[in-house]
């Protein structure tokens, strides 16, 4: 099911796909979109338990950024990690199994939606604390001389957390090869950005001596092009970068809790990255990629369904790692 040469390298995998860049980006975005829509259906049908955070509307970030990473690199993501994981790992069946809480899920059902790990990919559910972790991982690669770098995702709201600034300071002082990606979707849960963030996002990165920039886009190709240089420069300079992507979340925060002004959300649908890219492609290609992604999601669901729930007798396993 996995190709050893591309299993850990999003870049190698992306390069190995056929079709134009737009087509390849689209194929990943439609997979993410359909995967998450399926998740929401499963929740509605009572087949999933707990909660989840979808990235509907923000898929362009994941595909635009992570396809530049290779097998040496590290990703630390947050609660909204499905898109990031699907680009990094391309294993919808493992994520689906995790979401269903099955043995054979990414972490055997222990983590669920926001606590996953797969090779160099990690996520955790406490806002902010992953940021120094990512800096440390980047520092480790640097000290080991592997040439690896780290990407850490955080939302606009998470810029409220103090530990983020401690991490920026440390990354800058110590020259950690880490890319801080701020996915500014204008909201933190139910809170609009103007109620949670004073001043300017990019200025916050700059104030710590980190080269910082921003892009306002939901166009996956644009984001992909924008980040090519940024990722390369982190790797080349061994210095951190701080990059804000202004985007929008078209779905609720978690399962079903959207109280944002309806008009605002509707007005942002024009920026929906999936149709935005689709419009540039041959409709038959879109149909094929949609169908292929749909098939993969269905296969993932079937695979996940076929797995057993974990046995409580395994609870004491993995108190230390298997390494």
């Amino acid at each position: 099911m996995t190709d050893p040469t591309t299993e850990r390298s999003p870049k190698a995998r992306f390069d190995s796909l056929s079709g134009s860049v737009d087509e390849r980006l689209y194929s990943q975005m439609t997979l993410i979109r359909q995967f998450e829509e399926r998740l929401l259906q499963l929740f509605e049908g009572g087949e999933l338990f707990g909660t989840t955070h979808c990235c509907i509307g923000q898929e362009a970030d994941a595909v635009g950024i992570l396809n530049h990473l290779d097998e040496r690199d590290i990703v630390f993501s947050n609660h909204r990690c499905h898109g990031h994981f699907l680009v990094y790992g391309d294993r919808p069946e493992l994520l689906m199994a995790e979401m269903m809480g099955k043995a054979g899920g990414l972490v055997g059902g222990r983590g669920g939606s926001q606590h996953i790990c797969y090779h160099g990919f990690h996520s955790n559910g406490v806002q902010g604390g992953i940021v120094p972790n990512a800096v440390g991982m980047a520092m480790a690669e640097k000290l080991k001389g592997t040439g690896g770098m780290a990407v850490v995702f955080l939302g606009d709201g998470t810029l409220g957390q103090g530990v983020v600034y401690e991490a920026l300071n440390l990354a800058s002082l110590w020259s950690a090869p880490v890319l801080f990606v701020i996915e500014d979707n204008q909201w933190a849960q139910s809170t609009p950005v103007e109620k949670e963030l004073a001043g300017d996002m990019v200025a916050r990165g700059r104030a710590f001596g980190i080269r910082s920039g921003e892009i306002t886009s939901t166009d996956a190709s644009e984001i992909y092009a924008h980040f090519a240089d940024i990722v390369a420069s982190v790797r080349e300079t061994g210095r951190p970068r701080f990059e804000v992507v202004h985007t929008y979340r078209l779905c609720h925060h978690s399962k079903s809790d959207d109280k944002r002004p309806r008009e605002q959300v509707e007005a942002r649908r024009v920026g929906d990255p999936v149709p935005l890219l689709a419009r540039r492609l041959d409709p038959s290609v879109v149909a094929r990629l949609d169908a292929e992604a749909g098939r993969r999601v269905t296969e993932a669901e079937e695979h996940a369904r076929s797995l057993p729930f974990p046995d409580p007798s395994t609870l004491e396993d993995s108190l230390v790692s298997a390494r």
Partner: protein
Amino acid sequence: MSRLDESERELNVLGSLNGALHSILGDDDRVVVLGEDLLDPYGGAFKVTRGLSDAYPDRVLTTPISEAGFTGVAVGMAMRGLRPVVEIMFGDFLMLAADQLLNHASKYTWMYEGKVDVPLVVRTPMGGRRGYGPTHSQSIEKHFIGMPGLVVVAPSVFHDPGALLRTAVVDDDRPVLFVENKLMYARPLRRIQGGRVGDMAARVDDARYPTVTLSYDDFRDADVTLVAYGGMAELAARAAERLLLDDEVVCEIVLPSSLNPLDLTPVRQSLARSGRLVVCEEAAPIASWGSEMIARVSAEAFDLLEAAPVKVAARNLPIANTRDLERAILPQESDIVAAVTRAIGSHTTPVHLAG
């Protein structure tokens, strides 16, 4: 979005707390409420603060994601005569504000020789059983018990949660950590009327944060004293009922609402009848509140103990997301039954010993 309607308020823990916050804000303009995502129409992640910002827009402050920062701001407000109520969205995030509680809120009054008060309340939902996974399901109040100067309170359905919250906000000049089990929000209150609740006789002491004691035998005799708090109160009551019906074991249930300071009197009174102690909590088992309870009883009421005290707690693991594992990790009614059975030893049928 206005407050929960009257009937809802009457019926469940969420309503009781929400109603209390409405009336406290109405009665006392020193009260301010701070936390993430509090504003209406959203009204807070668990809706305990629903309707507050519509009614009191100037005194309900929605915060950025910065638990240390806004708790620290609330500490400062409390030092200057306000009575802030902070919500930490999930109890799991409380460690982010822990230094504010340990080295700021709980220190100032004593350290400054009484020159300031810190009448701060930090409320937070704790607990699992909702499939929220390892960082959104914990009961970490135990780590905050034993900070000199910090009061820790936890209501149960047998207390009046709103009244406890009012006491903490309005009548207590000390910083209070107010722990709300999140599964309990939707649970109906079990009101004590005429000294009874359901089939049980009930006593409530006259402490500031009262302890409720429940008995199936009108406080005449008991085989075991079951001590619990918060969300475990109902599990303890259900276990007690099952033990009575299935095994004719009589439990008394002692439900403190003040986890720290801890008044041992009601436990001692019950132990004088039962001689056997089972302590129930949802937290991971080491150095927990239950440990403190057992240690206190052993040190101060050793002579009342006829058998080894037994603790019911979670397994010593993080809390898994998936249902079966979460269930196996967190303590269940059946664990309480098994513990009671163990505590009373030969009194029971062997089948329970295997449970």
